[in-house]
């Protein structure tokens, strides 16, 4: 259950809209079902009051939408940012992807967001309503009148279960606490895979990646993937691909996707959240983050605006490529 409630956000946004201080509000809007909250731009306070949502299903990172939305507006855009979103916000600023002056960033503390897949696994399909309770959710399905009680901690999104930081690293206004960087166990799973034999790792990834339907959702949602034209859409890039027609047409997709965001990925976990096939894509990103930390020193993308990403930097004493595996063995 979120500590700051919807009204606080709503009134803040409505007041600024009505006062003309911002032209639009980028927030979360109600979707088809109780759990499919979607990013949305609100232009009037009436719209806001009708459809604005702030609850445990607001996992979506809104920072990416600033790139296109700010370009369409003359005035300012108010955006709500959870702690992990503020890292993406900074990273996008570092890369000059939107103008800071056109954004009014409101930071919202976050207690972790719920994973619909996990909820469905516990409460069953056909969810008709979800009530927040003190400890979690009371879920009603169309198959059963009696609501199912689910503990909040059991249905956290992976990115929230391994939350790296509750600190807001950028904002104009803060609703609630600034929060702190956390000690997370986010590399545990990477380490578990690293400890496997090469064959096991291959089998693991083959099992995961074979489910990919190449829907591009991971790319489309990624706040680091804001290219004007993506290499995967560009016939001249040598990486453009359609759905797989042969056994090996596009196995590079996931490596290239992860490499393109290496050193820029803030580990916001959106890729895994949206994957319809539940592929743990964040593990690829975290592998790069872990390697960067081990090889070149701790680096958190987006922690600071304007920081120099590890892949556009070097030192004379950098690790040699052949020593990579020695270092990891340590």
């Amino acid at each position, binding site marked *: 259950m979120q500590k700051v409630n919807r009204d606080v956000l709503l009134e803040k946004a409505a007041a600024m809209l009505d006062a003309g201080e911002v032209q639009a509000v980028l927030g979360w809007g109600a979707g088809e079902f109780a759990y499919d909250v979607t990013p949305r731009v609100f232009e009037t306070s009436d719209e806001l009051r009708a459809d604005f949502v702030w609850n445990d299903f607001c996992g979506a990172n809104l920072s990416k939408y600033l790139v296109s939305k700010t370009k369409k507006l003359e005035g300012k855009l108010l955006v709500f940012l959870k702690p992990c979103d503020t890292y993406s916000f900074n990273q996008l600023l570092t*890369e*000059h*992807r939107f103008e800071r002056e056109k954004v009014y960033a409101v930071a919202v503390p976050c207690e972790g967001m719920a994973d619909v897949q996990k909820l469905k696994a516990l409460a069953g399909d056909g969810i008709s309503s979800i009530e927040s309770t003190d400890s979690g959710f009371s879920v009603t399905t169309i198959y059963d009148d009696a609501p199912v009680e689910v503990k909040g901690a059991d249905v956290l999104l992976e990115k929230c279960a391994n939350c790296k930081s509750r600190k807001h690293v950028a904002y104009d206004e803060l609703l609630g606490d600034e929060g702190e960087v956390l000690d997370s166990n986010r590399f545990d799973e990477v380490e578990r895979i690293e400890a496997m034999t090469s064959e096991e790792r291959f089998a693991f990834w083959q099992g995961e990646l074979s489910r990919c339907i190449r829907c591009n959702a991971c790319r489309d949602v990624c706040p680091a993937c804001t*290219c*004007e*034209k993506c*290499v995967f859409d*560009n016939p001249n890039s040598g990486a453009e691909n359609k759905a797989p027609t042969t056994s090996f047409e596009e196995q590079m997709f996931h490596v290239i996707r992860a490499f393109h965001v290496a050193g820029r990925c803030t580990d916001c976990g959106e890729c895994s959240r949206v994957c319809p096939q539940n592929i743990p894509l964040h593990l690829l990103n975290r592998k790069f983050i872990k390697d960067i930390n081990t090889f070149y020193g701790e680096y958190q993308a987006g922690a600071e605006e304007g920081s*120099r990403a590890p*892949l556009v930097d070097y030192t004379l004493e950098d690790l040699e490529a052949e020593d990579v595996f020695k270092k990891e063995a340590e």
Partner: protein
Amino acid sequence: MQRIGVFVCWCGSNIAGTVDVQAVSEALKTEPGVVFFTNYQYMCSQAGQDIIIDAVKEHNLTGIVVCSCSPRMHEATFRKTAAAAGLNPYMVEIANIREQCSWVHKDMASGTEKAIILGKAAIAKVNLNAPLTPGESPVTKRALVIGGGIAGIQTALDIADAGFPVDIVETKPTIGGKMAQLDKTFPTLDCAACILTPKMVDVAQNDKIRIFSYSEVQEIKGFVGNFDVTIKKKARFVKEEICTGCGACVEKCPMKKIPNEFNLGMDNRRAIYIPFAQAVPKVATIDPSACNMLKNGKCGVCSKVCTAGAIDYTQKDEFINEKYGAIVVATGFNPISMDKFDEYAYNQSKDVITSLEFERLTNAAGPTQGKLLRPSDLEHPHTIVFVQCVGSRCAACAEKGKEYCSKICCMYTAKHAMLVRDKYPDTEVYVFYIDVRTPGKNFDEFYRRAVEEYGVKYIKGMVGKVTPEGNKLKVRASDLIAGKQLNIDADLVVLAVAIEPDKSARPLATMLTASMDTNDFFTEAHPKLRPVESPTAGVFLSGACQGPKDIPETVSQASAAASKVIGLLVKDKLKGNPCIASANELMCNGCSTCANVCPYGAITYIDKEFPMFDRTMQTRRVAQVNPAVCQGCGACTVACMSGAMDLRGFASSQIIAEVDAICR
């Protein structure tokens, strides 16, 4: 579709001995785009080249693939051949089937097979080649030299001698730099002023050279051949064109107690001053922090005594814009601060001095008129201790000293010691050293003379502590060879202080986008083969701004830099390398990642309007590559996520085509 001709060279038996050239040309004839194929004994011979020229004309070829020796050998030759046939020279690709095939493989079958694949790769690449034309940019035939020490002076004189105008920018009121403060110069012991001041006069009288003294570089824009520089000429409150340098104003100025920078604060100057007698330009300068007239409007004596009417209390800083084709950095060095070296008591005793202060003390124009007297009581010192490596080779603490060897100290200390013993044979002179480093013409001989002829006592060991006691300096040091600790009562201690680049160098490097090392020395384009050029095109390095240097080395580097500048300025147009990066603006994110990896600062960003699908216009930040600055390494092409950045001549699509051809 290209119309490609394939020419397979035998290179006598060099290729034909291991590669079936006939089979290669047969195999390649069905490749896409190939309309002509042949093989010949020596493609690089005149007859071979004629075959190419005839084929281009006869078959209307648009691309050429030569399967021959390494492109490092004859790419240039075949490009010329293509040009002679009326083709763009960059429509030629070479398949290296000699150095990387016939010479390293013994087996005819595998050699032939590989040659065919290499040929296919070259054909695949040439299919995607586009005609390239080197960009041209005009060259402003004027050079800027930043720094007016011996390095800057020599560079300016050499450039001017070749007939090009040169401007020198110097922050001090006079040119001359550190060398003007020196007494004698090693290893010949001629007096510094005697060899420097004529050069300074040459500079003043050379009508190709302008001196902006008491001035700073404010802003640098542009690139090689076309730098746009703003120079700030600080107000000196004296009209330079009118002042005759008579010195009447200096004599009458009532503000007498201003520490004299030129003598390192060991005596005083006035608020209006001429740094030294041979200053160039020899004009007075008013120190605004000391002048009563400027501070509170009370005085005006200098204005009254100036018969020329050169004093102008209302003078303002002046900004001058000028275009230059080349910039030479000659910002020089300074001794490091002694504040962190309490053990040598530099801040406690006036009689602990730096070597540069020692130069002034022995200089006839110095505070003691050249008599060696200790600063505290103006007595003649009978025991002098010289300490080498003070702050040099210091790896303990970055704030304290410098990790590098300052290079010049061994020689000047030998010089000082020798001069003292020569002038005052009754003086005991000790030199504490860690190593004596004297590589250089006549250098070791010089040092040995100090020991053997002049009886300077060289002691291997370091001074640990200097303690002022009464009018003596207690020097505690180790003598490593005797295995003793020495306690010497000295009258004067001279510290061979490490040197560091001038503080102005770091901001200047930022303005120039020139790279520096961790010690703030400018880095050279190549440490061995391009030692006087900065990696930034059009920026050259002269003197100690690139690393510690003595005078002979500085002067030779200064002349070398000048020759590089002259080589640039004689060109009317700069022809660039056409194989450079360029950004596809439609795909560019403007994220600055490419600029972060560019070693040359060739990438800038502009805001540009683009029509959108909904018929609106959208402003986006996009990268622009300066073709005159880009060297074509391709670092940006990989850093670029969207693939907007590509490299002409080595385009991603071309390399992928080669990969595909090889893996087919």
